[in-house]
């Protein structure tokens, strides 16, 4: 069985809806959730996740509340949570306090696209010591030397981005990703994210990687309908369960 990881922005829904979303995702075989931390200036995101971020901020979404949510429902959330957000949210929270609180809330790790492995070495060290995962992102422009460094630094899983661009741009051709995966020497699972938008693109990814990360295509269905049923039904369809 390969893994499906869903990205969903914290604060976009009520907590009850989010709980229900977790329950239903679990039921259709999702293996982990990337819980997006809304940020005012999401420079790596395309229009869909930008819009999700704006709405979530209006609803009062924040890193603090995302951690509180995880803590409050620790025993009910049957899926591991990785927080995904921009470094200033974590920095302003306080990096070591963050690891402590996130661990206490049962959060598995954090993905921070604008924190390269070269920065905040102390944070990486502490995370490693406390068994808090900090997956890395590998991009199509990462050199072989960087891929080696990144694979070595990664914990949790490796996030492979198959193309240049922001989140939400459709990808259909994963041949470059296939080549990149061959260069990654790591015992960690390699997940491909960015651009998966239908059953065919999901199948292509599942052929070459250990799992797929789906964000914009899922969130779009929530943004358009305002209901969690739509993204769930869509996912059930494309995932073929």
């Amino acid at each position, binding site marked *: 069985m390969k893994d499906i990881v869903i990205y969903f922005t914290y604060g976009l829904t009520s907590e009850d809806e989010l709980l229900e979303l977790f329950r239903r995702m679990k039921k259709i075989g999702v293996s982990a959730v990337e819980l997006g931390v809304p940020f005012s200036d999401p420079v790596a995101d395309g229009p869909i996740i930008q819009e999700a971020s704006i709405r979530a901020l209006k609803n009062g979404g924040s890193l603090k509340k995302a951690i509180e949510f995880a803590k409050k429902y620790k025993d009910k959330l049957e899926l591991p949570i990785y927080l995904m957000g921009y470094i200033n949210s974590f920095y302003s929270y306080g990096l070591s306090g963050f690891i402590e609180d996130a661990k206490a809330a049962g959060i598995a790790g954090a993905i921070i696209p604008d924190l390269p492995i070269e920065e905040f070495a102390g944070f990486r060290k502490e995370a490693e010591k406390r068994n808090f995962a900090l997956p890395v992102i590998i991009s199509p422009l*990462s050199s072989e030397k960087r891929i080696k460094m990144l694979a070595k630094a990664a914990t949790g899983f490796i996030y492979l981005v198959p193309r*240049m661009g922001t989140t939400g741009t459709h990808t259909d051709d994963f041949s470059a990703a296939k080549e990149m995966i061959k260069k990654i020497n790591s015992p960690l699972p390699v997940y491909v994210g960015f651009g998966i938008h239908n059953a065919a693109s999901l199948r292509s990814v599942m052929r070459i990687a250990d799992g797929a990360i789906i964000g914009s295509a899922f969130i779009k269905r929530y943004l358009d309908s305002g209901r969690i049923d739509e993204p769930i039904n869509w996912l059930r369809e494309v995932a073929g369960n």
Partner: protein
Amino acid sequence: MLPDSNGYYGNFGGRFVPEILMGLLEELEQNYNRIKKEKWFKERFKQMLADFVGRPTPLFEAKRLSGKYGFRIFLKREDLAHTGAHKINNTIGQAILAEAMGKTDIIAETGAGQHGVATATACAMLGLNCKVFMGTEDIKRQYPNVERMKILGAEIIPVDSGTKTLKDAINEAIRYWVTHADKTFYLIGSAVGPHPYPSIVRDFQSVIGREARGQIRSKIGRLPDMIIACVGGGSNSIGIFWPFMKENVKFIGVEAGGKGERIDQNAATLTYGKPGILHGALSYLLYDENGNIYPTHSVAAGLDYPGVGPAHSFFKEAGRAEYHSISDKEAIEAFYELSELEGIIPAMESAHAVAYLKKLKGKLSRDAAVIVNLSGRGDKDLGEFEESR
């Protein structure tokens, strides 16, 4: 050495960007470190500054203004540089660098439009493609510069997200950059962004301070007591400060105090902000308890930005420079004062630096010498702020 090998000025700077840009920044750093020392580059840059930009710009003793405030005031006339502001020093340097690296697609952000015009100008002269990202609010308030960029052959990309000003123009430029990373050269307009940009911009703008050193010496036989410059991202200020770094010269950076102390009413990053991370660097920043960036306001589009270059955060913490803020109203008064007393219409950004002189009245001796960096001319601002007067 500043910055250190990781791009830090003390605790500030670094490289906080998505993985896709890391290799490009390493490539830029290596190329820049090599090319900047090459003789052809130094000569070409120098010649362009002389023949195309019109450097050196004069240092003008503003006698009537001096008379009014009771100490000697000298204006470094960046308003007389080609295209009307200091921004051209940096765009010429970076455009030659881009060309040498084989990059032909240039992108830039702009607030006041001065960096956009200067980029479009350098690109026209060197035959490079140019796209400029500009907030729709700034397009409205700095319209003359929009027309100029179009005439120069640049494509303007209006940015309608967030506050529709400089911060959002940079966000959109970064999004374009990560999407076309392999082909695009991002020509950043201020001493901000991930390493090595703050240092590249500083180096190219340092021509201002180097010239001013020689000029003030030949006028008064010594170095000045104080240098005043406005601070948006911090490029004209670092450019004039840097060559005086080790001297006993006081540095004053003037930020946009806007309409007041309240959050979102100003853009005085070093006055009201705290360290944080935006647009690739750790530096002072205006943001809330959840890490979200505050909207900003300034009558001067070029100062209307919630961040500041890392060298200034370092200067502030090290006590090497003082940073103060000037309100919209004070800047507008100075805009008229300089026009009426000296026959020079300053850019609204530069008017912030001029306005600080008033705060020094009675505090300096008659023979004290103060240089104000007049970063640009005010043609772009005519009429725009009448309503706030």
